[in-house]
């Protein structure tokens, strides 16, 4: 659970572009329909498959297919959970960089606004340019460390918004580094 200070409030959140999760879910949807071809393929090559003494095909097929769909369903939620929990939260005091890697790895970095020196954006490739997503780089002064959020929607607009937040709150004496 993320906790904020008394005077702190969220200004906006940044998540990866919907295209990223949509691509992953589209692949899963395609995979979900793939086993439905098995009965047709077997029929076209004149092979009849039966299982055990009951000589039934469809009950086992339905079982296997449901089993497979449940696995895909769980994988889909792993993708969605990763997507949803991988977030940058911009507050009036800092930027929280929460990186969710799989289900069991989570890294939380804090960038204090007054330590941010430079914000750059990067958009590479045809798809990224057409769908409008790219990377946002934030350079901090303290450890000369660069923070990157990949595949954000409209990186230029987001960089502008982060800059606006910096302009408004960076030099606010009530949020000096001593207090933070």
């Amino acid at each position: 659970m993320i906790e904020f200070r008394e005077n702190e409030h969220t200004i906006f959140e940044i998540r990866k572009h919907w295209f990223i999760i949509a691509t992953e879910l589209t692949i899963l949807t395609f995979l979900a329909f793939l086993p439905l071809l098995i009965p047709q393929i077997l029929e076209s090559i004149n092979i009849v498959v039966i299982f055990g003494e009951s000589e039934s095909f469809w009950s086992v097929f339905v079982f296997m297919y449901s089993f497979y769909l449940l696995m895909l369903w769980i994988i889909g939620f792993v993708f969605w959970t990763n997507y949803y929990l991988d977030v940058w939260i911009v507050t009036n005091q800092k930027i929280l960089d929460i990186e969710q890697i799989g289900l069991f790895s989570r890294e939380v970095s804090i960038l204090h606004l007054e330590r941010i020196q430079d914000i750059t954006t990067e958009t590479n490739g045809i798809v990224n340019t057409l769908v409008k997503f790219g990377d946002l780089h934030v350079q901090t002064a303290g450890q000369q460390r660069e923070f990157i959020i990949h595949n954000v929607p409209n990186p230029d607009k987001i960089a502008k918004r982060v800059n606006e937040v910096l302009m408004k709150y960076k030099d606010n004496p009530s949020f000096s580094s001593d207090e933070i």
Partner: protein
Amino acid sequence: MEITEKIINIPLAPEVLWIMFAGVLSFFLVMTFIFHHHWKYYGIKGNQKVFARALFWVISVFLILLMILAILFFETI
């Protein structure tokens, strides 16, 4: 021309399907616990959490019931 069908009989007992079902059910329960933990403690808010939970449970329970029915049908034929 006569079309000949090749029949392949795969020996499979219902017990094997029940064992597979127990395995997938255990995996499902573990994953459900992990998802709910992450959604609760890592900040998925209000309506989104309710919607995600409802969607996850409805489809999962439907698929689990379908698996049980398929095994019962396989047993009773």
